[in-house]
Each structure stands twice: as C-alpha cells, then as structure tokens.
C-alpha cells in the first residue's frame, strides 16, 4: 500500500498528464463524430457573448456590401413575382388562416465562420428562444450553408457544408438524379457531389440544387454549378466538382428553414417511434 502511494506521488505529474491527455483526446474524437460534439461548443453564453460583442464592432465594415446583396435578392424576388399585377392579386384569395405553409424562414446573423479547417462550424445568433432546433437547414440568399447541429438558448452551431461529417442530399436541376454532397477539405468554394448514377447526363455549367428528399431543405435551393466531373473507379457513379454559389468565406446573414411538416413526415417514415 505504502509503495503504491509512493508510486502515485512520485509520478503524479505523469499521471495528471495522462489523465488530461485522455480527457482532451476524448473531446477530440467526439468532435469528429456527427451529433456527439456537444460538450465543447461555442454556443455557451461566454463565447457566444464575446463573439456577439465582436460582431457589434465588425458589422459596420460590411454595411455597403450587405446592402448590395439585399438589393440583389430583392430584385430577384421581385422578378419572380412580377406576374402578380394588381388584377391578379385581387382575384386570388388565399385563406391564410387555414393555409399551412410547409416551410417557415427565420433570419439570423453569422457570428463566427470557419473555412480553413477540415471540420468547420458556423455560429449564428439565433437559438432555441427564436425557434431554432437541431436539423434545421441554413441558407443564404444565394444557396445552402449547412445544417443546425447544436442549439443553446440564444445561439446555434451550424455544421457547415465545409465539414467532413456533412452529407446533404443534392441533385441536378434538369433531371431527378441525385447524390450526396460532401467536401474533400481542400478548396472552400468547391464541394463534391458523389454517387450520382452514370445514367445522368451531365454538362459543365449545369446547376446543382437541393432535391427535397429530406425534411431539412425544400426542393430547389441553389447549391452551385458543375465545373468538372468524372466516373469513379467502378465506373458506376459520377464524382462531380461543384462550384458553390455562396462565397463560404463571406456569409454575413442567413435564413434558417423550419419545416412545418417534419414531425408528420418523420412519423410516417418511422411508425414505431412515437414523436
């Protein structure tokens, strides 16, 4: 007994080192597995508050370009609804009390954005109190950004499409073939679309959009354009390089997509699990 205690005292630094090393390695491994990295996260009030403080200073520097982007988006939206002249509006009545929108959008601001690592996360300034939940999709005016992974009262952490754990269903705009969108960790403006069947007819410059196969994103949200494609080793699937519409290094403001039918669809798909 005496010897054991002596041993412990003699090697206490080494044992402390091992203990802390073990702890930090566990945290590291958890951070690399999807939906488990909850302990060390910037959504707590301290880091969120500090990032909010930083944003309140730095947002003045981008006001001009933000305005420009908002005007562009307005222009695009106005072009989409240009057929709604005064005559058509009067004759079309939509009873909004019973009309159930499938998706609701919640605006937010990016507090922290990474793109230089292999696993990147984004911190946004909306949380549970604004109705953000895990597994909601995040988009900008131009295209998709990621999926909410972790929420706190005031902040949420988004798993960026520039993350090795991110897998998003995406497909071609002109046909119904689809694959999953992943990132190889190299260029923050180019992502890869995998497992598109070789029957698909591709062309450089084709548009890639979300295809609405999950409850996360509605169909038709822009992702990017094809800049390169080749068949994989088995000659059965295409590997496609996609140039993103978004500049992932400069996101600014975002919209979170709340799917109002999500729980209904999920309970249909997994009838055993009571929601």
């Amino acid at each position: 007994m005496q010897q054991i205690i002596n041993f412990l005292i003699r090697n206490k630094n080494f044992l402390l080192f091992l203990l802390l090393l073990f702890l930090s390695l566990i945290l590291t491994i958890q951070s690399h597995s999807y939906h488990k990295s909850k302990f060390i996260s910037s959504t707590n009030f301290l880091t969120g508050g500090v990032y909010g403080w930083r944003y309140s200073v730095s947002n003045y520097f981008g006001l001009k370009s933000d305005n420009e982007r908002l005007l562009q988006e307005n222009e695009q939206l106005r072009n989409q609804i240009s057929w709604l002249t005064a005559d058509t509006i009067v004759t079309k009545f939509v009873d909004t009390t019973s009309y159930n929108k499938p998706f609701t959008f919640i605006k937010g601001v990016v507090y922290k954005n990474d793109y230089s690592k292999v696993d990147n996360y984004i911190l946004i300034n909306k949380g549970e109190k604004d109705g953000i939940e895990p597994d909601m999709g995040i988009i900008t005016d131009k295209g998709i950004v990621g999926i909410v992974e972790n929420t706190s009262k005031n902040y949420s952490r988004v798993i960026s499409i520039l993350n090795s754990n991110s897998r998003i269903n995406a497909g071609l705009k002109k046909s119904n073939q689809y694959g999953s969108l992943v990132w190889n960790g190299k260029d923050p403006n180019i992502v890869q679309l995998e497992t598109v069947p070789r029957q698909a007819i591709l062309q450089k410059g084709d548009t890639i959009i979300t295809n609405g196969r999950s409850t996360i994103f509605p169909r038709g949200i822009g992702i990017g354009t094809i800049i390169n494609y080749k068949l994989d080793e088995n000659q059965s699937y295409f590997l496609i390089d996609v140039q993103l519409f978004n500049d992932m290094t400069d996101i600014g403001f975002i919209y979170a997509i709340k799917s109002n039918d999500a729980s209904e669809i999920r309970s249909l798909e997994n009838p055993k699990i009571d929601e």
Partner: protein
Amino acid sequence: MNNNVLLYIGRFLSLVLVQVFILNHINFLGYLNPFIYIIFILLAPLNIHKSLFLFLSFVLGLTIDLFGDSGGVHATACLVIAYLRPVILRSVFGLSYEFQTVKLSKVGFGQRLAYVTLMVFIHHIVLFSLETFNFSHTLLIAKKTLFSSLFSIIAIMLVLVLFRRKDS
C-alpha cells in the same frame, strides 16, 4: 510575487482574446493562421509547479477550443508541449537550465529561435494531425504544419522582441 501572478493572468487573457478575435481570422493564403497564444506556455516561469503548469496549459488550450469549436485539439497540443517543455529546455539550454539561471529575455537569438521552433513545431504537428484526424490527408497535415509553423514562429519571435520586458 503577487504582481507576477497578475501579469500571468493578464497575459493569459490578452493572448486568448488576440488569438480568437484577430489571429483566427487571418486565413493567409486561405488557410494559414499564426497561433501565438502558446507564448503563455513558452514564457511560463521555469520553476513553476509542474502539475499546475500542466493544468493551466490544458485550460488554455480548452479555451481556444471553446471559441474555435474544435473539440479538444488545442488542449491536447498544449498539454503535450507543456509536458515536453523541460526536455526541450534541457536540450536547448543545457547546463544553464539545470542550474535555473537561464532567462528567456537574456539568451541569444539562436537559442531562443531553437526553443521557439521546437515548441511550435511539436504543437502544430499534434494540432493539425488531430484536427484533420484522417490518415489519408497526410500531405495536407504536412503542408499545414510546415507553413503554419513558419508563420507562427515569425509571429512569436516578433511578439517576443516587441514586448520584451525592460527589467534589469
């Protein structure tokens, strides 16, 4: 003594804030960030209590991890260099470290550069290996380690020169 503790607390906080606010967002050439917060570990007093030093280094790394959403990679890297620091000090400064007479502000440029280089390089190898966490990206790890180390070493040497203490 009390004054020194305040100095170290101030250094801890200011290094973390500078790292998180400014240096994590440089992204020079797309992915290069200097990690100067390890100056806290580099400049810790030589006769510091070892367990306390390990613990402080762990907390320092964990704070950076909290801000950067990186799990425990900085904590691991800091812990490793804090544990290896006596070995590196001994190999760089030799006898003068054994007799506790070495002062970082007094040693020559070559020795200081060797010390900083060794510490930064080990820190960055651990950091980027764990951050990437994928053996198929070995080349990427090597590239990031090499260039970020260069960047960090230059930044740290500059900071050490600029903020040299002018005591006797």
